[in-house]
């Protein structure tokens, strides 16, 4: 039970990062290899605000998300827009390069030490029956659920959300309908970066903050692929599955399996059911 809870919490983080991948992929067909590094930037920004400048936790949370979201939108408007139409390869390399720059920037600004973020939930536990529930894990799960509800409502019920769906379904048609497609894409980048920042801030108290936090993005790939790249509920389910598998592998399988479990699952999924759990089989028509 303890394992399940911890697995769910870790899985939520993977799910959130995977959600960021999927949002961008659905909208612009770019795969953002720098998603994990955006998460790292979010965590560091929040840390900097809380510890260096003494901002209250919740204000710092909001500011960090806003900063990273703004950064994501700026990134799209300045750099990524110019590679649209280039082969996928170029985009993959571009985001990998951006990720390397972010990591380098982080190590120069915040140094390569390891930090812990003090939060209102730190080191508090509740005992429920025989299970020790740490508040940090609860905060992750609650945060994810709230965020998903907000995103769901946003995409389903607001005008901008529907416009975004249209833009990601058919760019040209959306453009003809008077939807400002470019601005929508920037907005989606902002949302995706913001989601990454939320994941980063939620993860910070559980895992320590350092410049390699971004490598969690690689495991989130496994989550996104497992859920079928391009399916939002799939990303979350995939994330939860990967989180659970990883925790159980750590508990019951020999040492070292835990670190690679996510990647093994990823390869297995690609080999057996490449369209993922929620993907549909289709062939491109010419």
């Amino acid at each position: 039970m303890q394992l399940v809870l911890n697995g769910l919490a870790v899985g939520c983080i993977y799910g959130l990062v995977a959600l960021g991948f999927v949002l961008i992929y659905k909208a612009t067909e770019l795969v953002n290899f720098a998603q994990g590094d955006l998460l790292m930037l979010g965590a560091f920004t929040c840390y900097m605000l809380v510890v260096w400048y003494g901002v209250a936790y919740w204000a710092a949370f909001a500011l960090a998300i806003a900063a990273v979201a703004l950064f994501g939108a700026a990134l799209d408007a300045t750099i990524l827009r110019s590679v649209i139409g280039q082969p996928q390869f170029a985009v993959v390399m571009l985001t990998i390069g951006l990720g390397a720059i972010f990591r380098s920037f982080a190590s120069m600004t915040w140094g390569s030490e390891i930090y812990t973020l003090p939060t209102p939930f730190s080191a508090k536990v509740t005992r429920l029956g025989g299970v020790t529930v740490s508040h940090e894990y609860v905060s992750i799960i609650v945060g994810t659920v709230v965020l998903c509800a907000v995103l769901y409502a946003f995409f389903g019920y607001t005008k901008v959300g529907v416009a975004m769906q249209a833009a990601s379904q058919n760019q040209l048609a959306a453009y003809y309908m008077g939807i400002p497609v470019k601005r929508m894409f920037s907005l989606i980048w902002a949302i995706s970066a913001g989601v990454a920042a939320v994941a980063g801030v939620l993860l910070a108290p559980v895992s320590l903050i350092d410049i390699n936090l971004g490598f969690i993005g690689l495991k989130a790939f496994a989550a996104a692929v497992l859920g079928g790249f391009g399916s939002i509920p799939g990303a979350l389910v995939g994330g939860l599955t990967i989180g659970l598998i990883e925790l159980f592998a750590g508990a019951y399988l020999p040492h070292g399996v835990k670190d690679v479990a996510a990647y093994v699952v990823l390869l297995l999924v690609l080999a057996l059911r490449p369209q993922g759990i929620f993907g549909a089989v289709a062939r491109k028509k010419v």
Partner: protein
Amino acid sequence: MRVLFKTSYAQELGLFRDNVQRNWYVVLFAALLVLPRLLPAYTSDISLVFIYGLCGLSLMVLAGYTGLVSLGHAAFLGIGAYAHVYFIHDLGLPWLVSMALACAITAAVGVLVGLPALRMTGVYLTIATLAFALIIQEVFARWDSVTGGLKGKPVDKPAVFGVSFASDLAFYLLCLAFLIGGLWLTANLLRSPTGRAWVAIRDSEIAAQSMGVNLAVYKTIAFAYSAALMGLAGGLFAHRIGFLAPDIFSVLLSIQLLLMVVVGGLGSLHGAMYGAVFVAILPVLISQARDSVPAFVAAALGPLGKGVADAAFTLVDRFVKQPGLEPGLFGLILVLFILFEPLGIYGRWAKIKLYFALFPLYKRATFRRQKAYMRSERLR
């Protein structure tokens, strides 16, 4: 501008475009033979360039000609290196046999990884190879009996047929021979039906399939060939660095290898070579810049007064001594190349050549990118 009229099939079949081109290659070869005499201190560094050249060749076949991007090629390099070292040290096989076996094993692993991944397109393969590389790195660290685990594994100098290649010069020649062999093989393969099929797959999978190219077969061949070349490079690499440890073959190395082909110029063998030279020289340039740039900035700001110059010196010095600078610079170079020169160094060179060939009539638009919209890869 010189236009080449082909008057016989022999011209069409020749490896070189004309005698002029062939003579230039002969000159280049002679220069490479003389080079160690001119720069004896750098002989060992230049042999590393040749090994990188083999890696570049391998990735160029895969990414540049077949359009499959692999983020796991450091793992193939590692498999080649560890397999080769295991065969000669632990099993005592002859050098050439061991090298051939290492290539064969790497190719086999390439096929195993490739087979499931090749059924899908584009970015899935990239992700799958990335996952594979991370798993393999863990295997290197934990399979103590073969790889020596985290303690690492020392490597002896190569000896082929009892002839020792221990000296820098001998190893240089060995690497050069393998690089020329690899280039010759690849150049020939690329103008064979196999190579044409690869290029067709790169340009449009659907069109290639409609023309009767069996996608799975040709993609698998490309993957296996690329992995085998990487295995060869791995064997040489093991001798060059003299000590194998799992963290050498990290994702960062894979990215560096990809950087090589992007910077060099995708879709040309020349590009792979330019990229190899670039990637090998860059760390040297960076370390030199670390020493000279602060003093240079201070000297440039000298007229503003000693206080300003000193402050600038400390500031710049602190900035360039940051350990995280190097990967960031690699990333920056990658980003700049993709944004401003997607064709890489080779493309820049081609443009300069065309500028002079057409002298007053060169138009920028010749190389302008045609597509400014997004072509959907999506199925529905």
